[in-house]
């Protein structure tokens, strides 16, 4: 034993191993570096640009300083709410169907479809919403943006719902059925209820995901410098507003873009962290 540890050959192999494993640690550090740099930038540049007016004021006319993103914050909330209203029932319903019909070929097709949908670039979803809503309605609208976001949301909710339902012990279902509870009541009031916190986690993660989407909103919800809550008018959102301000040549707008990015990232990270803190990370199925 001791002889082996001192041969030059072994020392060389050991050194090589330590070096390679050290490189993996270095890779992890390098990978995480941008996370901290970005958060630091947001904290410094975003916080110094953030003020009360950002939350309460409308965008100032071009060329004037000041103003805020009150309309964009409300717009983002409205878009998310509307998208959830459409996406969550469909997602949960599909998830219930998938969990109840594990082996059927149609369920296989739905599951495959949901998996594939997760890989569809979000800009392509925007084109779809444009074709389905914007063109028939004759203009950019809140509804179109919400449809695009709902389409992104559905496969995420579907797959988490299914996986959470499958985690429920089968004995629970059998116990309810043995007591004479009908099938659908068992599914809804026993199985789905047991899985409810997991399903809620999936929904919140999906909301966090769509809250940060910009691309599918560019030519559906479009953006609006004025106050609007109407479903049929273009609406502003934090992401699109940050995008527009970031690529603008005005320093005051760029400053506000940082403030908007800070608010946006805070919302998304708060949702992600909050959910994981509550569920201690066990309910992660969406990638």
């Amino acid at each position, binding site marked *: 034993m001791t002889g082996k540890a001192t041969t030059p050959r072994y020392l060389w192999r050991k050194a090589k191993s330590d070096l390679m494993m050290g490189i993996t640690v270095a890779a992890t550090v390098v990978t995480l570096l941008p996370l901290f740099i970005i958060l630091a930038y947001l904290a410094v540049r975003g916080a110094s640009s953030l003020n009360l007016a950002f939350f309460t004021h409308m965008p100032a006319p071009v060329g004037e300083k000041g103003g805020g993103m009150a309309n964009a914050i409300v717009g983002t909330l409205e878009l998310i709410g509307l998208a959830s209203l459409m996406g969550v029932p469909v997602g949960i319903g599909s998830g219930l169907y998938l969990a109840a*019909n594990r082996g059927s070929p149609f369920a296989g097709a*739905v599951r495959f479809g949901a998996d594939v949908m997760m890989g569809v670039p979000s800009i392509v979803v925007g084109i779809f919403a444009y074709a389905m809503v914007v063109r028939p309605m004759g203009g950019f609208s809140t509804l179109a943006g919400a449809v695009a976001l709902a389409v992104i949301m559905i496969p995420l909710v579907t797959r988490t719902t299914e996986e959470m339902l499958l985690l429920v012990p089968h004995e629970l279902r059998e116990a309810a059925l043995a007591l004479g509870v009908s*099938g659908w009541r068992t599914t809804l009031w026993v199985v789905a209820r047991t899985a409810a916190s997991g399903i809620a986690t999936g929904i919140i993660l999906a909301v966090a995901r769509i809250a940060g989407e910009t691309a599918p909103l560019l030519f559906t919800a479009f953006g609006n410098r004025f106050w609007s809550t109407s479903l049929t008018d273009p609406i502003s959102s934090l992401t699109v507003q940050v995008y527009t301000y970031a690529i603008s040549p005005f320093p005051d707008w760029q400053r506000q873009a940082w403030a908007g990015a800070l608010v946006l990232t805070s919302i998304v990270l708060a949702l992600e962290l909050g959910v994981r803190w509550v569920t201690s990370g066990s309910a992660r199925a969406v990638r």
Partner: protein
Amino acid sequence: MGSRGCPPRTGYTLAEFLEATHEHVAAPARARRAAAFHIRPFGDRIFNLSTLLLALVGLSILVGLALALVFDSMPSLKAFGWGFLISSDWDPVNDRFGALPFIYGTVVSSALALLIAVPLSLGVALCLSEMAPAWLSRRLGFMVELLAAIPSVVYGLWAIFALGPWLRDRVEPLLVAVLGFLPLFQGPRVAVSMLCAGVVLAIMVIPYVAAVCTDVFRAVPQTQREAALALGATQWEMVRMAVLPHGLSGVIGAIMFGLGRALGETIAVAMVIGNAPQISASLFAPSATLASVIANEFAEATSTLYLSSLVELGLVLLIVGLALNIVARGLVLRATQSRFEAEE
């Protein structure tokens, strides 16, 4: 009863057990069931039908999406045919369109992203699965996932004001000094460039590739590792002999996932790539990708043919993205499920 579709089980279910052993307990239940016969299946049927319809909605969105894209790109498909893919014209004024500059931009920026992201992701995955103790691995893994949670518009903003200038002033002179003889690293240096887009993309796809690779490596049976160590392998030799070969197909799947992500990423790229429909050998030059040109020009496309050409770019993106995703999913699924085969 009601357990249609549940996995086949060994032994009795609770209901069967009750019926078999306690006839007097089960009998009233059966009587009740018989009495409720006309009501219960009806409720079940309604319930099953409504979930089926919702599942149908989910599936039809995918089909509808594909059909809508094909339908809307018809004018462009008819006008340019296959030539669309190899033409480098992009001239909205004269209604002549070709996808080549964008395909080139997409391929090069994604390749650059993977070139940076794959080694780092493998390092992260090995560190998380082989090196770090469980408690640390969980926390590090969570932080890597947070990289995926940051909205892409925030990445874009940061890249415009921090990463781009840093690359231009610090990294690019270095590249010119060392590798300046390559056409890749020649030409004027600007803050918006293919290089900047590639680096941002790399940061954005690492969490996805690393997470899948970690899962794949964790799925390598522990017995394989122990066998290698028992033969006297060092930790790195164990990784090379047992972990990497076993996880190879899964890693390839993870890379394809990452590629799918990189191809479709829109906003961050649109903000830093410069959006110039040109094919330039230099990584310092501005370029454009399929996704970025759609983002930039779709809302302002004036003619039918212009709009339809942009939709066709989206169709190309969709087809490539779907193909990558389907193959990747198969590879990863096989790699992560082999654990159960090995242990059972």
